């Protein structure tokens, strides 16, 4: 690392007793090597050259470009003066023009930017610590006024500052906007001029000014052009004007911070746009049923306008799962057909988890699944469809159950046969006393006899959970909200209607809702 012994900076920074902040470095008498902490490749040139390292506000150390200025004789002095901004117009404009300059100067202050970044980080951390998107009662309970956390943090803080929807709250967004403006200000005031500085050929003409540089050395009996050739071999861009030489390296490093900041600004702009101008919705549809896209999509922001594609009707042909040999689920598949308003099929595709369907600016994702109904034959009658309800257990695994009453259905204490299922593959049956009776696979046509009743499991109907998204603004045309809903349950036996009313569920999403968890 250090090829020379002499320290190149004042060591004041590292003596423990002294204060952390030290003034800029003092010139030393030694002519030490150029700032080792600023080089990537230390200069090994020891001939007549001076190295001037320029220091900017938002520069990574390694991106400093190095300039080497060389002279043989001492002609007239020339100044190089870089102005950060062009001077304004006449005197009358002077005051008005000063204001944005001052604002810019304040905004591009580095400690302010660092403070903003810390604030953003802190708010984000807080956003993960506080549960998001719950109802106000939840916060009343969790952060009660009688027993405040840290002595002062109650639900009032949470709700007034908008911490329950932290990532779209005004506090957070305001800090982000401030950070964005700081970025823009800094890029404009310091980095673009730095590029100009780096590219400007600044020849230093006098020997004195060269000797004043951070690194200087004298080599008698040498020629400038030899040096130029050597420098070019070392990767510098060399400019030779008469007896003067100017070389620099590392121009690309000047562009990097600008590029990074511009990229971040673009991302922030895109995020803002999508947050205010998109639609989102999710729906759980049993196989065999359909829905219209416009029904399930809700706007997320004030700039959202619906499009023509909203009229499309989506029909779930089939929902099935692939399994590994061990019985674990390997992949979920949903076979979808899209029909336009005339009933013509415009698209057909099988979705799976990492493979969404895209049509007309709308994207449909497979996110979840649930068990819709179990179709059974009882004593040869039927088929009956029994709706399956999800049972809550700890963890990710799902469990669904249904119940077939046997005997007197009007009595208060109805006994019957229960059926549980973890996935669409096998159904576990229990008899009236709750004892385990057997396992059946759907479509196996194998009857099972429980307490005198013969049950045949015909089919297990799953339903597919789908998530829909649409991006950006498109030209709004008038929308005919589809009159067709999913009330197509009349096909099923009447006596089961009240159970089947629960199916399908249409879950309208709100702004802060996250997509369903991809469970197993």
């Amino acid at each position, binding site marked *: *690392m250090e090829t020379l012994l002499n320290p190149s900076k004042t060591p004041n920074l590292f003596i*423990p007793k002294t204060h952390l902040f030290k003034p800029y470095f003092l010139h030393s008498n030694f002519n030490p090597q150029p700032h080792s902490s600023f080089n990537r490749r230390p200069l090994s040139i020891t001939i007549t050259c001076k190295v001037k390292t320029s220091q900017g*506000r938002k520069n990574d150390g390694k991106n400093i470009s190095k300039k080497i200025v060389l002279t043989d004789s001492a002609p007239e002095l020339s100044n190089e003066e870089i102005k950060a901004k062009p001077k304004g117009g006449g005197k009358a404009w002077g005051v008005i023009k000063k204001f944005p300059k001052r604002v810019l100067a304040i905004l591009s202050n580095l400690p302010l930017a660092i403070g903003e970044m810390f604030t953003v*980080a802190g708010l984000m951390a807080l956003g*993960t610590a506080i549960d998001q998107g719950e109802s106000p009662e939840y916060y009343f309970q969790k952060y009660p006024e009688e027993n405040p956390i840290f002595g002062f943090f109650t639900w009032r803080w949470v709700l007034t500052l908008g911490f329950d929807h932290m990532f779209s709250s005004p506090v957070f967004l305001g800090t982000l906007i401030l950070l964005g403006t700081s970025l823009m200000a800094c890029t404009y005031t310091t980095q673009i001029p730095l590029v100009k500085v780096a590219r400007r050929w600044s020849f230093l003409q006098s020997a004195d000014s060269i000797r004043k540089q951070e690194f200087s050395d004298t080599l008698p009996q040498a020629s400038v052009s030899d040096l130029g050739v050597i420098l070019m071999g070392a990767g510098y861009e060399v400019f030779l004007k008469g007896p003067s030489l100017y070389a620099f390296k590392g121009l690309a490093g000047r562009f990097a911070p600008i590029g990074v900041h511009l990229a971040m600004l673009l991302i922030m702009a895109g995020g803002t746009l999508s947050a205010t101008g998109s639609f989102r919705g999710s729906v759980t549809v049993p196989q065999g049923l359909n829905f219209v896209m416009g029904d399930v999509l809700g706007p997320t922001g004030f700039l959202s306008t619906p499009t023509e594609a909203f009229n499309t009707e989506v029909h779930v042909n089939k929902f099935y799962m692939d399994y590994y040999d061990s019985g674990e689920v390997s992949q979920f598949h949903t076979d979808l057909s899209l029909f336009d308003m005339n009933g013509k099929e415009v698209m057909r595709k099988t979705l*799976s988890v990492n493979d969404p369907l895209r049509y007309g600016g709308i994207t449909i994702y497979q996110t979840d699944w649930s068990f819709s109904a179990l179709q059974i034959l009882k004593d040869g009658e039927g088929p009956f469809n029994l709706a399956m309800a999800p049972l809550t257990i700890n963890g990710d695994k799902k469990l669904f159950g249904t119940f077939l009453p046997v005997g007197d259905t009007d009595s208060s204490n109805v006994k019957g046969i229960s059926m549980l299922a973890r996935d669409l593959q096998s159904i576990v049956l229990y008899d009236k006393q709750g004892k385990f009776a057997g396992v059946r696979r759907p479509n196996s046509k194998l009857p099972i006899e429980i307490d005198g009743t013969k049950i045949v499991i015909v089919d297990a109907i799953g339903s597919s959970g789908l998530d829909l998204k649409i991006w950006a603004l498109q030209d709004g045309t008038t929308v005919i909200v589809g009159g067709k809903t999913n009330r197509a349950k009349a096909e099923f036996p009447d006596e089961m209607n009240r159970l089947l009313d629960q199916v399908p569920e249409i879950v309208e999403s709100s702004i802060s809702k996250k997509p369903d968890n991809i469970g197993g």
Partner: protein
Amino acid sequence: MIFSTLEHILTHISFSVVSIVITIHFLTLFLLVDEVVGLYDSSKKGMIVTFFCITGLLVTRWIYSGHFPLSDLYESLIFLSWGFSLIHMVSYLKFKKRKNNLSAITAPSAIFTQGFATSGLLTKMHQSAILAPALQSQWLMMHVSMMVLGYAALLCGSLLSVALLVITFRKAIKIIGENNNFSFSFGKIQYMNERSNVLLNTYFLSSKNYYRYQLTQQLDRWSYRIISLGFIFLTIGILSGAVWANEAWGSYWNWDPKETWAFITWTIFAIYFHTRTNTNLEGVNSALVASMGFLIIWICYFGVNLLGIGLHSYGSFTLN
């Protein structure tokens, strides 16, 4: 069957070798053994052996389970320790001439992560498991490996910054109070041997302060470089994660706890770089920020998994 025995063997070998390496380091540090060079050679070889063992372990798991070995916490911890040994190998190979003391940081880190992974807490996950549907994507390789490599590099760099802080404020902390020039290990020994003839007329520093200064300079530079590398990996990891999220879950950014904490980590290290631009704040202040980064990476990588909620929940585990 043969694969799992092979895995077992490799795990045990790498673990033991790393422990030996660390023991050697402690010996040189505290006992001031004279044959520093001989022992140092063997510790270097030890780290190479570790690297190959862990690589073998990962490759075996890959072949055996059919998917890239990064699907749950156990595998990502093994990958993290591999990342540490990789950093050590790269710096060893690239800077052969200079005495490279990075193993003082990488070796203990590798052993801790691997020890935790193979410990009794995670025995359920030692078997290769089937990949959940959400993880069956080409992005798994890119996103997760970039993130874990980024964590490894950033952890390494922040540990170096912590070391810098400890050395700088040694008197205040009073860790090892004696006036012994050898008390803080590695680089100083070399400097004494090679440069003993030239030093004493540097201005206003005593020789002890000078060595400490040199050491802190070295630490500062190394931590800067390693954190830069880690930052690049982290950025690529976050961006590829966003693109994958768009494919699988419908939007680029969901403010999931894991995503948010990865972003917080990114922000902290961006602050680190920005503090370094200004020479006033360089050195100790940036080291402070990097030390904070150490804690934040652990929260991001590990703490969020303990919560067990959110879209990244397959990285979680339950203590049983």
